[in-house]
């Protein structure tokens, strides 16, 4: 195996896996230069977003949501070096565990989402591809689209993404899993939860977020 391996190429960033970064197993996220943008503006945006993402990951930790450890941030290169989580994507394991276990995982995801929202964080791309299960811990990853907000609209979009992903990828268990998610979310959000679920249903009806049914599992 190469020391440095490109494992994902997103719209905004390239993700590299380095098994020996000063002796550590790390993931390197680099926001790539956009040729269509003015170079100076591009540099400003990429370094600002790199710092912003690192700060939100840290803030998520303070809210009680596991996120990868950050070893280094290099703003001028738009690079974040973080711990490589040696687990499996929740998307890949969820269909192959027992029923009770499955619900337990989703309750936990609901609790962690509630914790993010309660502390003013919107994840922005809440899918089971962006959750990694390592033993009993579920890490939330990819805060590239995250933002700070306590608006019901934004929270509703987060939940809508979660539900849409359930319908497309885990449709066999959709209802019971969303119920488990909802239980967990309510246990943290309390009285604030109702307005968010209401918003989520409103967003579903808008149809703006309706897309091709078979490509809904999201990331590429």
């Amino acid at each position: 195996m190469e020391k440095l391996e490109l494992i994902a190429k997103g719209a905004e960033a390239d993700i590299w896996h380095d098994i020996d970064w000063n002796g550590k197993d790390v993931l390197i996220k680099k926001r790539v230069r956009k040729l269509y943008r003015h170079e100076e503006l591009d540099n400003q945006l990429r370094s600002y977003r790199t710092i912003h993402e690192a700060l939100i990951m840290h803030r998520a930790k303070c809210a009680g949501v596991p996120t990868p450890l950050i070893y280094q941030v290099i703003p001028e290169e738009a690079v974040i070096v973080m711990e490589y989580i040696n687990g499996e994507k929740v998307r890949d394991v969820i269909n192959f565990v027992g029923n009770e276990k499955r619900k337990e995982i989703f309750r936990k995801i609901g609790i962690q989402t509630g914790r993010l929202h309660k502390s003013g964080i919107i994840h922005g791309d809440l899918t089971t591809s962006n959750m990694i299960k390592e033993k009993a811990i579920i890490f939330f990853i990819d805060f590239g689209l995250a933002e700070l907000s306590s608006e019901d609209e934004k929270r509703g979009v987060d939940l809508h993404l979660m539900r849409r992903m359930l319908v497309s990828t885990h449709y066999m268990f959709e209802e019971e899993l969303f119920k488990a998610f909802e239980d967990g979310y309510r246990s943290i959000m309390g009285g604030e939860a109702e307005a968010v679920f209401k918003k989520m249903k409103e967003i579903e009806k808008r149809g703006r977020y309706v897309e091709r049914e078979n490509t809904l599992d999201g990331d590429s």
Partner: protein
Amino acid sequence: MEKKEHLICLGIESTADNLGIGIVSSEGKILANEVEVHIPKTGGIHPREAAQHHASEFGRVLEKALRIAKIGSKEIDLISFSQGPGLGPCLRTGATAARALAVYLNIPLIGVNHCIAHVEIGRLMSGAKDPLTLYVSGGNTLITAYEAGRYRIFGETLDIAVGNCLDTFAREAGLPYPGGPAVETIAAKGNLLLSLPYIVKGMDLSFSGLLTAAVLKLRGGQCRLEDLCFSLQEVAFAMLGEVTERALAHTKKHELLLTGGVAANKRLRSMIQLIAEEHGAASKFVPQKFATDNGAMIAWTGILAYVSGLRTDVETSYIDSNWRMDEVEVPWRSLN
């Protein structure tokens, strides 16, 4: 109504400052595309004054369109009109004329969504089959693509349109009409990037804060107008580029279509071209007289709607100044 192979539609566009009358055949041939622009003496578009302009010019433009198309009114098979979104008084003027013509000639009436018409004429003119479209004008700023029966909106402005931002800035700076092209000309002599707010919220955009910041810098008098125009364009278009690129990556469309009045801007065109290339998509552009508001796009979309069985009853042909394109079923897209 019997099925005819060959149809001729007369389309009326009157959402804002343009009064357009287009005559198009069902083969997609443009027989006429006449546009009269209302140019305000001061300030931006005044809805009532624009509507009065359209009403007083209507007869003349109609006559000219028929003359250029070399047809008599009896040869028209249907009338279509912009039913929304747009400025209420302007829309009402066009709708009134459309109803009168349809009743007088005893032919069907079709209400058309203005934004959808931009995409449809863009497809016809550029040969794009199933594009992701960036539609940028003085009244609209949105990124749309066809998915499952409708044109879905993947991103849009939360406040003013990008063209409105450029035009208003131009007026504040005392630049001549039309404002957008004036900003572009002056921007070509700028090179210093000034700090202006870059506002992308998820997939949506906001230009009102950018406009305010640019105007404040202008009044502050600390920077060259050339650099300010340059920076305004760079920031506004980079915002459009980012959301367009993300939508392209998400929808995986193979064509990227740019249309609307702001599509005339060369800097924006080059950005769109770069983004398309990066994603292996073909960039598609529309001849400018079909990219700005025009009657041919309404006529052509009227034909598409009519052929797939849509009709608008005169009694219920109300305009809707906030009519969203993603509320409209587009059955003709599932036919091809």
